């Protein structure tokens, strides 16, 4: 039952009340009680575990002793690091590339080359619900800690393997990265500029295929936990292939090819399905006095006016009634030649304006528009800070850090960020004593033998 006070509120106040981001830590976590072992590296595998950890699962990230996984050693232009990397290497730091895919986790170090480490993994597997791993196909199986071995120990385990090409087929032994997924999945070839505008394809700068694959993997895991707990009582083996995942969101390009044989070309910041629905170049910088070249450059502004009445309004704003007369219907506008005439005409209006001035003019006429923001503008948006999507966090290990919060809201069991990550092996003692039954001297011995 929704109580009367909530019922009488406006919808906005209702949302503000039930999603109150100041009240998050008083509420329960939806995945509390689910334990996952994350033997993952880079972004794809870690992201899947991170989504579970944001929702309250106890995720144990297992990395190589001392140096940890490779993503800790990636940071923009080798400059910003957070220290210490581990208690064994306090003079080294973890790079900012590690951000975003490892929050809320416990950190255990294990050298899988040592037989004792395999035994520890098996003890953990016996007490865990989920395993996430993204080594090459069959690596963990060969080491004796893959799904087939874990299933003997724990039939309820849901084991998510993520890789480049899948566990069988001609590509099974190839390694993959996000950008390889974009390239083979077909995304790279349709992103960027057509020949007339330079011809360069472009990758997505963010690791979009990794985070997308991580999200798919996470909800597959949840689906299998549902099946286990409500239907079968048993876990199962899950495979996610990065290249297959990439092509999954090629939208209409595959059906276009299947029906007509047309190989889609890149269309830059315009849109082959809708016109006007693209990004305009504006002539003035919003930060002319900034020392940062990215801020000195001219701005860009998105505008959508593909409906006939909206296009008419847009033509009114830019003072080009001829354009509205020449392209009155969407069918008139959406063709390639029409778009190549319309966008430059619109950009004439923006040529002496900043992106904000263009945005004001468009939204003033009731059009959907948005200036293209840089990371400074995104990081400081009040709207996102108020809703908890962007936050400053007093991290227990690293101090004052800015990070993304969870991107969604759950009214009764909200996701949350407790810490951004920890040094390599920070929770060795906690995990090994709590879950594996090791005493202090045994743990010290494991450390001495460089097993942890």
């Amino acid at each position: 039952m929704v109580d009367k006070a909530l019922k009488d509120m406006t919808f906005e106040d209702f949302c503000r009340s039930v999603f109150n981001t100041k009240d998050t830590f008083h509420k329960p976590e939806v995945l509390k009680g689910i334990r996952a072992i994350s033997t993952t590296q880079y972004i794809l595998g870690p992201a899947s575990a991170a989504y579970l950890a944001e929702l309250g699962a106890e995720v144990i990230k297992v990395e190589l002793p001392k140096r940890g996984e490779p993503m800790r050693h990636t940071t923009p232009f080798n400059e910003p690091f957070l220290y210490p990397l581990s208690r064994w290497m306090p003079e080294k730091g973890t790079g900012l590339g590690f951000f975003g895919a490892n929050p809320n986790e416990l950190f255990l170090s294990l050298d899988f080359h040592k037989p004792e480490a395999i035994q520890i993994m098996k003890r953990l597997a016996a007490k865990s619900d989920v395993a996430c791993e993204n080594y090459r196909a069959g690596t963990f199986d060969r080491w004796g800690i893959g799904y087939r071995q874990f299933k003997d120990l724990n039939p309820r385990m849901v084991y998510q393997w993520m890789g480049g090409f899948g566990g069988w087929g001609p590509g099974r032994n190839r390694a993959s990265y996000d950008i390889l997924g974009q390239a083979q999945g077909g995304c790279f070839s349709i992103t960027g500029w057509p020949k007339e505008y330079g011809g360069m394809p472009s990758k997505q700068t963010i690791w979009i295929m990794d985070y997308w694959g991580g999200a798919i993997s996470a909800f597959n895991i949840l689906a299998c936990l549902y099946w286990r707990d409500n239907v079968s009582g048993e876990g199962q083996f899950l495979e996610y292939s990065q290249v297959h995942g990439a092509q999954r969101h090629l939208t209409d390009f595959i059906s276009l090819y299947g029906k007509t044989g047309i190989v889609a070309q890149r269309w830059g910041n315009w849109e082959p399905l809708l016109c006007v629905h693209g990004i305009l170049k504006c002539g003035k910088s919003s930060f002319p006095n900034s020392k940062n070249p990215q801020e000195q450059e001219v701005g860009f502004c998105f505008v959508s006016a593909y409906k006939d009445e909206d296009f008419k309004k847009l033509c009114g704003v830019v003072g080009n009634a001829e354009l509205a007369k020449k392209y009155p219907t969407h069918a008139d506008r959406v063709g390639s030649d029409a778009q190549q005439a319309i966008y430059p005409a619109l950009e004439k209006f923006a040529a002496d304006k900043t992106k904000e001035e263009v945005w004001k003019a468009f939204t003033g006429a009731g059009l959907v528009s948005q200036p293209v923001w840089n990371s400074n503008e995104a990081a400081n948006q009040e709207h996102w800070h108020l809703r908890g999507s962007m936050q400053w966090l007093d991290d227990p290990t690293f101090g004052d850090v800015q990070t993304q919060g969870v991107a969604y809201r759950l009214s009764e069991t909200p996701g949350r960020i407790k810490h951004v990550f920890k040094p390599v092996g920070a929770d060795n003692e906690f995990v090994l004593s709590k879950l594996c039954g090791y005493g202090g001297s045994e743990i010290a011995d494991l450390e001495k033998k460089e097993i942890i």
Partner: protein
Amino acid sequence: MSSPFRETSLILECPKCETLNYLDPFTFWNFKGKIKCAGCDAIWAYELVNGTRKAAPAAATAPHDKMPGYAQSKDWKTITDFSKVNKGPQAREDFQGKPIPITKSKRGNPVSGTPLTAADLVGSRPKQFAK
């Protein structure tokens, strides 16, 4: 066989010495002016619109406006002398490419951005970075 780079836009092959002058898109995507070849110092008038050249390079006279971002000779030897090629454009003037010690976040609060010693790890966490 003619060079595959003779008609490329963002790689200016010097018509005189065949040096490949790489024109980084950040600087040259939209450009009209004179470029100095990193191989033979010849000056070429050149125009690019949205990364596509309007015409082949035409001989011009000094002074030049810009140098390429990177270049290599026709026998594939790199030219990295900064009197011949530009330094890459950087997001910050004080870019170093090596770890920068940081003790305060953008909003001015303590953050653990400096290398530590084993002794720093003894005691409370805040002690590690609130120096």
